[in-house]
């Protein structure tokens, strides 16, 4: 008996909540309803009773997968309020951590997408290679997730010189992996049939919803905070913004794979350019004022706005994760698609919570309601893959 794995992108959730309701006419989706709130933990309110330092730890736990992007935006925000500039070495270290996270997050997504499509080998391999990155992060920061590295004015821990050769080794192991997955997606006609033309988000809709990250760049919208509003060391290194124009799930997948390659290049440059020096300027306070900080998480722009009254606690702390804009755009991306593809499209924006655990499908004509469990969705998806495989590879 095969094992059924909670598939949804990242947040294997429980049975009952109807996060997504698909309305279908016949076999095609006519509209999508989305319900949020199960993960709402009141972080913005909590932030008002945390010190500025503690806020960084708090926001790190908004989402575990891009856990360093929120601290990145937070320190950018705090430094914006106080016109604080962290030392150069700290900026390089921050960049290295952020890019390592991008690699592990994209590998994670590739794996889960592969699993959903019925390519379990892809899942196992990508997560196996992801362990290289997790090990590296544990070596450098002390934790596989939630690195506790950032603070306004610098970083908490230095990168030891003796660890650096190990980083280069790990990166060398990752380079062929990128080529492997790129080739696997590019050369497989079945994957093409499953992913190309599926869930297309037009550039106009991308703009209307304000989508960000690979979701935007896969639809031809060339935005990337690292390029547009450079922070940390991103202005000191060379890398490409990966933009495609198809807007479909295929484009989103390839964007992520290519971004892994760019991340490797960024890290190498940082390590080569980094000089010895201070890692923290030991600021004493965040002055009164307001500030905005952003970072390019694996999913897209993370945006923090904060108001300081000069005390140790934020008067207001606003967080916007990239998935907030991206998930809503699904309401147009799934129209006209089949149920089997709908779950994949929902996953393709790489949401920071999993709601493809359970889908309710309502037939607009008969008004019949049917619930698709995780196992049903997996079955549907894999059945489609197998049918395509039969047809194309006969």
């Amino acid at each position, binding site marked *: 008996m095969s094992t059924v794995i909670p598939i949804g992108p990242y947040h294997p959730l429980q049975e009952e909540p109807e996060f997504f309701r698909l309305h279908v006419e016949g076999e095609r989706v006519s509209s999508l309803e989305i319900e949020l709130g199960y993960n709402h933990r009141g972080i913005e309110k909590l932030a008002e009773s945390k010190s500025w330092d503690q806020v960084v730890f*708090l926001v790190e736990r908004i989402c575990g997968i891009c856990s360093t992007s929120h601290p990145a935006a937070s320190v950018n925000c705090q430094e914006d309020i106080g016109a604080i500039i962290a030392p150069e070495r700290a900026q390089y270290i921050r960049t290295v951590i952020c890019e390592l996270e991008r690699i592990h997050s994209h590998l994670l997504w590739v794996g889960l997408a592969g699993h959903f499509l019925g390519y379990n080998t892809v899942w196992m391999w990508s997560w196996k290679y992801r362990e290289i990155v997790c090990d590296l992060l544990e070596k450098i920061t002390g934790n596989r997730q939630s690195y506790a590295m950032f603070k306004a004015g610098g970083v908490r821990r230095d990168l030891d010189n003796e660890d650096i050769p190990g980083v280069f080794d790990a990166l060398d192991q990752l380079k062929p992996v990128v080529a492997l997955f790129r080739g696997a997606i590019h050369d497989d006609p079945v994957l093409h049939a499953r992913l190309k033309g599926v869930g297309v988000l037009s550039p106009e809709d991308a703009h209307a919803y304000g989508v960000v990250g690979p979701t935007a760049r896969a639809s031809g919208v060339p935005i990337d905070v690292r390029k547009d509003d450079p922070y940390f060391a991103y202005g000191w290194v060379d890398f490409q913004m990966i933009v495609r124009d198809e807007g479909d799930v295929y484009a989103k997948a390839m964007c992520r794979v290519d971004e892994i390659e760019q991340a490797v290049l960024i890290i190498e440059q940082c390590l080569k350019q980094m000089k010895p020096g201070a890692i923290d300027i030991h600021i004493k306070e965040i002055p009164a004022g307001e500030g905005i900080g952003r970072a390019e998480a694996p999913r897209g722009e993370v945006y923090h706005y904060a108001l300081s009254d000069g005390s140790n606690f934020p008067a207001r702390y606003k967080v916007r994760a990239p998935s907030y804009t991206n998930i809503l755009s699904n309401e147009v991306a799934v129209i006209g698609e089949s149920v089997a593809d709908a779950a994949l499209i929902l996953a393709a924006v790489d949401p920071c919570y999993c709601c493809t655990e359970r889908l309710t499908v309502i037939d607009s004509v008969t008004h019949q309601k049917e619930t698709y469990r995780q196992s049903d969705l997996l079955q549907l998806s894999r059945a489609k893959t197998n049918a395509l495989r039969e047809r194309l590879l006969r």
Partner: protein
Amino acid sequence: MSLKLKTLTRSIWVYHLATGSCNNCDIEILDCLTPRFDIERLGMQLIGSPCHADALLVTGNMTLKNIPRVRAVYEQVPKPNVVIAIGTCALGHGIFEGSYTSPHRVDEVLPVDLYIPGCPPKPEGMIAGVAKLIGLLRETT
């Protein structure tokens, strides 16, 4: 009853229930299935429905919106079973203590048999915790 528990400890089927988490613990749970940790060789399987579960792995803060759902899921899990709370949030909220969305702890809603601390606990920690529980169950039956 004790015979059932004995059977239960030989090959545990686990159902994963997240109740308002950041996904760190959830990903590390999934990670247990991947080649490095491979809990399947220990007889543990992650399943897609609570109806066949021997153990519930619970993460997260038990936000208000989740409570009715969690109770409904727990009804479906056959008895006897074990409930394992994973991660600092599931133990007692941790940094989310005081949030208006989660006034209750996981163990106020579900009868927890095992607590695995960490933010997140490493896969090795989770496996060790479950192994400890199995050992305890075997001793008492």
